[in-house]
C-alpha cells in the first residue's frame, strides 16, 4: 500500500488489476489550497497512457510485480534475449518493453527482469549505473568555463552530455531515470 507522498516518477501501482508505472510526476499546490499530485500513468502491459491527479489522502495498491535476476545475452532481430541463471530458461523482451533501458544494457550483464504474473514485461534498472567513457574529445585548452558540457559516448554506445573535464577511460555515474550525468566515479 502506498500513500500520495510515495508517488514519484518510476513508481509502479496496480489500478484495476493492471500494473501501471508513473511516467510523469508533478507536485502542485495552488495558492493556499491542498497538495495535489499530477501524474501520467502508463500501462506496463499495453503501453496505454492516461493522466490522473491524486490528493494527499489517496492510497494505492502496489503492483504485484516480481523481479528476477537474469543475464542479458544478445539481441536477435527486434527481440532482446535474457537467460535465467537458475534454470537456464530464456525469455525475450521486445524493443518497446526494453525502452530506454537499452542505453544502459551491456552484453552479459545481470539485470532484473520484471515479471507480472510470471510474464516478463520489462527491465528493472537500478537508479544509478556506472559506465566507462569510451569516446570523448580531449579537454580543449581554451575551454575553461566550469559550467560547459560536451557529448561523450559510453560503453553501451549511449551518448551523454558531461562536464568538459571528463575524459576517455573514466567511469561515470548516470541516473537511469533521467539519463543524465551525475558524477565521476574514482578508482
Amino acid at each position: 500500500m502506498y500513500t500520495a507522498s510515495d508517488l514519484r516518477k518510476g513508481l509502479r501501482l496496480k489500478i484495476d488489476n493492471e500494473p501501471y508505472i508513473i511516467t510523469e510526476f508533478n507536485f502542485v499546490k495552488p495558492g493556499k489550497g491542498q497538495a495535489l499530485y499530477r501524474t501520467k500513468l502508463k500501462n506496463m502491459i499495453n503501453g496505454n497512457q492516461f493522466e490522473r491527479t491524486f490528493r494527499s489522502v489517496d492510497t494505492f495498491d502496489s503492483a504485484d510485480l516480481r523481479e528476477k535476476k537474469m543475464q542479458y545475452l544478445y539481441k536477435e532481430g527486434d527481440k532482446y534475449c535474457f537467460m535465467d541463471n537458475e534454470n537456464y530458461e530464456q525469455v525475450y523482451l521486445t524493443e518497446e518493453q526494453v525502452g530506454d533501458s537499452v542505453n544502459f544494457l551491456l552484453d552479459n550483464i545481470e539485470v532484473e527482469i520484471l515479471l507480472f504474473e510470471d510474464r516478463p514485461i520489462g527491465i528493472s534498472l537500478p537508479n544509478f549505473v556506472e559506465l566507462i567513457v569510451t569516446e570523448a574529445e580531449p579537454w580543449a585548452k581554451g575551454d575553461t568555463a566550469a559550467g560547459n558540457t560536451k557529448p561523450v559516448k559510453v560503453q553501451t554506445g549511449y551518448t551523454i552530455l558531461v562536464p568538459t573535464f571528463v575524459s576517455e577511460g573514466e567511469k561515470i555515474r548516470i541516473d537511469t531515470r533521467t539519463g543524465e550525468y551525475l558524477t565521476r566515479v574514482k578508482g
Partner: protein
Amino acid sequence: MNTDHQDDQFYLARKSENLRRRAGLISGIRHFFAQNNFLEIETPVRIPAPAPEEYIEAIPSDDWFLQTSPELCMKRLLAAGYPRIFQFSKCFRADERGGRHLPEFTMLEWYVAHFDYRQLMDQCEALLLAALQDTEHGKNIIWQDKTVHLAPPWQRITVADAFSQFAPIDLREALAQDKFDEILVEYIEPRLGINRPTFLCDYPAQLAALSKIKKTDPTVAERFELYIGGMELANGFSELTDTDEQRRRFEEASEARDAKHWAHYPMPEKFLTALKHLPPCAGIALGIDRLAMILAGTSCIDDVVAFPPEAL
C-alpha cells in the same frame, strides 16, 4: 549524492547567470520600496505559533516552528503604527517539493496601511514593472514558449468568471463537489497570464484565509493571486481586521488540522490582540524564487537557488 569538487564547481558555475539575475531582481525590488517610502524589516524565522491553515504545515524547531510566512509578525508591526513595510524572508513548509516548490523558499511580503486589494494589485504591477525595467524583460517576458506582454493594465478576472470560461463545471458546482483545487490546477491555472499577467481575484468566501469579505458581495473575499505564464507568483488580500472573525477562522482551520492529525499550534494570541488595532490595510506575498525562474527562463526552481536541499 557524492560529488567531487570539480562536479560541485560544474553544477554551481552553470547557475551563475541565474544567480546574477536573481540578485539584480532583488536589488531592483529594494530600490522600488526605498523610493516609495517603505521600511525594510526583519522578523524572526523561528516562531511559537504559526497561523493555523488547513493545507500549510510548518516544520517544527524545538518546541517552536519555522515560519510558514512572516504574516503575523508583520501585521503586529502594522498595528503598532508602521504603515508601509516589506521584507524578504525565508519561509519553510513541510513536504512541499516539486518543480515549483522548495521546502525552504524566499518570500517577498509587503503591507500598506489604508490600501485595499485593488490598490495593492496596482502597486504590485508597478513594482514588477520597475524591477524588470532594466532587464531584457522590460517590455515582455518570454517564458516556456509564451510571450507575456507587460504593458499595463494587467488582466483581472474573478474566480467565478475563470471557472465559467475555462472549466468544465462552474464554480458553485466545483465547490459543491469538493473539486475546486483540482479544477483550478488542471483547467484554469495553465490558462492564466498567457498573453499578459493575470490577477485572479475575488476568491470564494470559504477560501478567504486571512482576507476580508467583500462588502458588496459577501460570497467572495477580497483576495487575489498573480499569474504569469500559467505560474502562480503572488497571493494578496485586503486584510481581515475583525478579531472575532479571525479567531473563528483559526479555530475552524485548527479543527480541520486536528481531524487529519496535523500538528496542533497554540492560538497566536498576541497577533489576535494586535488585530484589534490593525488599520484597514492590504498585504501580499510574492515568491522570489518563482519570479527568478521567469527571468532565468527555467521551469525548475532548482535552477535559481545555489543549493536545493538534495545538493546539501
